[in-house]
């Protein structure tokens, strides 16, 4: 296994969730290549702007760009850049087919079908085609530099020619005429359903991110999950080509090795949130359940303030935890800014509290009394949930989940004021990084979000993300069992009528090349022979 990655060769969005670095604003711009030579020229001119995975730290401010720029390509995009057939044939079917063609596997049917996607994804001449070739993502702290970087790339595009910027993202007025997709995290870091977001993501070997993210983000070691010793980084090959993965093999990737090494796949998904439907459902069903906020926590596995349900079983304990954590974070921030001080004891306590956000598994909740089996976060990052209480059932701890992990990137878009409707434009731009689309993203989407068998929940779906559908009377068809608690005598709650809360509005599978690969594409020297 490797201990060091060539971070200057790896694009920055693979290692960094930019939102965590105070880069809450994004624009996602899509292009079609009409002329391969000019297309490669466009890649050549954009490549120097691309942000790498070199660590950002305060002692090296020059490493921190005003705008983080990243570029990625669909299969058709690579084809239109004259990548040789032998290299293209090295890509697995799911990447070559693209997201639309994989709709039956990932649940993009009904309201998720591509007929309902933003215009940019549907070429009127052939809706089944993959007309999006290139994705450029821009992330920044401020709107000014973001606009400047966007204009710079527009300038490159105009000078190069042969590449069309695709227009047709749906805007706040409902018209599909926007030239790019905007996204922005709220000041409180809450997504539109009100849940604190971006708390946990996968952590892998050599990424050089803060070591505290290994807790809950890495793989279980079999030791105490409430400590750092309970977690180890996942193998880099789960997320980056050219490195060993959790099976000890290199992930399948096209040749030549230099083409794929340090690259990966990124899934781009525009997920519309039916915020009004969610709020109505939450109020009605939460009131019947007994408490709206507790019901919201049961749906997700985290309280909406971010505290994990597996550790904080009551609303009071969750609120107290988050209040204490928030106060210490603020004190730490002020101390860093030279206003006031924070004692060593307080720093140590802050570290302990931060740990509690992610340091848990489900071994002491095998009945689902605290966190339901069907809760969104217990499904999508099951930790020990698939052991069902058995002590050390596998030689490898986490054997059933270590190869299904994904990196979550992306940000919310749009606004959701109190009087919002489902028709308003708001949701999340979900970006998922993994080295094997079929084994990782598609598996989680198909088996853990849109099915329940692995959790002994028959065909129940993820209550928040599942494609629940509606019956002929317009009632949601989703169901969720909220297990009872024998200790508090709480009865089980059988929740039905769950509507579809999240709908796909666009997306595709992208290859995120290394810096070396970008230069090879630009020079036209990819040679698989």
């Amino acid at each position, binding site marked *: 296994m490797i201990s060091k990655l060539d971070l200057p060769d790896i694009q920055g969005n693979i290692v960094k969730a930019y939102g965590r670095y105070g880069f809450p604003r994004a624009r996602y711009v899509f292009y079609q290549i009409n002329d391969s030579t000019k297309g490669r020229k466009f890649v050549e001119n954009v490549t120097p702007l691309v942000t790498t995975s070199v660590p950002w730290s305060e002692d090296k401010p020059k490493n921190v760009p005003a705008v983080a720029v990243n570029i990625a390509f669909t299969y058709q995009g690579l084809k239109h850049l004259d990548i040789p057939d032998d290299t293209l044939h090295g890509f697995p079917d799911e990447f070559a087919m693209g997201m639309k063609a994989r709709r039956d596997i990932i649940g993009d049917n009904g309201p998720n079908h591509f007929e309902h996607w933003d215009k940019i994804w549907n070429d009127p001449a052939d809706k089944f085609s993959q007309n999006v070739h290139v994705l450029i993502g821009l992330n920044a702290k401020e709107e000014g530099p973001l606009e400047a970087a966007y204009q710079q790339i527009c300038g490159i595009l105009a000078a190069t020619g042969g590449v069309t910027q695709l227009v047709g993202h749906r805007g706040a007025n409902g018209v599909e005429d926007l030239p790019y997709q905007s996204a922005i995290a709220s000041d409180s870091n809450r997504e539109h359903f009100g849940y604190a977001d971006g708390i946990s993501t996968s952590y892998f070997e050599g990424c050089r991110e803060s070591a505290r993210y290994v807790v809950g983000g890495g793989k279980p070691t079999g030791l105490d999950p409430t400590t750092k010793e309970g977690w180890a980084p996942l193998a880099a090959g789960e997320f980056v080509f050219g490195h060993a993965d959790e099976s000890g093999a290199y992930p399948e990737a096209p040749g030549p090795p230099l083409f794929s090494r340090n690259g990966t796949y990124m899934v781009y998904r525009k997920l519309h949130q039916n915020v009004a439907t969610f709020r109505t459902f939450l109020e009605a069903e939460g009131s*019947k359940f007994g408490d709206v906020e507790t019901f919201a926590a049961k749906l997700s596995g985290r309280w909406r303030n971010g505290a994990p349900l597996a550790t904080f079983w009551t609303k009071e304990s969750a609120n107290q935890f988050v209040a204490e954590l928030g106060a210490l974070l603020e004190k730490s921030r002020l101390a860093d800014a030279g206003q006031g001080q924070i004692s060593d004891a307080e720093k140590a306590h802050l570290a302990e509290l931060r740990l509690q956000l992610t340091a848990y598994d489900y071994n002491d909740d095998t009945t689902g009394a605290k966190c339901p089996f069907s809760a969104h976060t217990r499904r999508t990052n099951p930790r020990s949930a698939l052991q069902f209480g058995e002590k050390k059932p596998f030689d490898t701890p986490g054997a059933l989940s270590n190869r299904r992990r994904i990196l979550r990137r992306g940000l919310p878009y749009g606004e959701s004021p109190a009087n919002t409707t489902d028709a308003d434009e708001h949701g999340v731009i979900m970006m998922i990084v993994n080295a094997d689309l079929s084994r990782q993203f598609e598996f989680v989407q198909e088996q853990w979000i849109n099915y329940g068998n692995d959790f002994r929940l028959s065909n129940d779906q993820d209550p928040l993300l599942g494609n629940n559908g509606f*019956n002929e009377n317009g009632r949601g068809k989703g*169901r969720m069992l909220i297990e009872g608690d024998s200790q508090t005598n709480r009865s089980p*709650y*059988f*929740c*039905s009528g769950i509507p579809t809360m999240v709908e796909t509005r666009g997306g595709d599978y992208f290859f995120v090349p290394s810096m070396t690969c970008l230069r090879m594409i630009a020079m036209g020297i990819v040679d698989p022979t």
Partner: protein
Amino acid sequence: MANQMGNAYALTLLCPIRHGVPQQCPEGLGGQTSAACVRYLLQDVMRVSLDSPMAKVPNTYLSRFYILEDVPYQGKPAKLEHLGSNYLVFCADFHGDLDTWLTGMWNAIQPEICGLLQYCFGFESVHDCASFITWIKKCQVETTFFFDGSTDEPLAVQLKNLYLKQEFSKFVYANQGNGPETIQANFREFVALTQPDNIDAPTWKPGAYGLDKVVSGLKTQGAG
């Protein structure tokens, strides 16, 4: 004990298929081998569906046919070996003893099963139920592998159990939050409708994928 676990029986047959081209074959398959005729019948008459002949054989939990053409070669240092003929492999799990089940099969689907097995060696000796059972036992190999998805109850009991479980789950969701009197009244209605003591109806049909087909009689898969 091999082949039996409680009241469940696991049958495995390896039936050698005749070499060459048979004199009689299904329409359109003239000149094709016996193995090709068997495969055609498996993909046509015996196809998995609500109308599958195997769904008509009493007390059948699960059955599966396939043709074993040869043994795979895994490369050196393994020895390259071949089978002397193609085999029709048949596996079934069912309730009760073998003779009773085979008699049930003979009575329910004699034309279909004879149509299939006529391409196998020695089947010309079969002319009634007794000779059918004798021939089948010649092809039997012992097994300890059982289908994990069922108990050893009679099929009708298992299907009624499934039906009641599914309907009761709907009842629970529908009555969430109702008062004790309403639940009691609704439960009485539930019992009257589902008739838990009546094994034969209402219930799942053998071979059905979903309950909607039972209720509506539709062959298309239900939305539930």
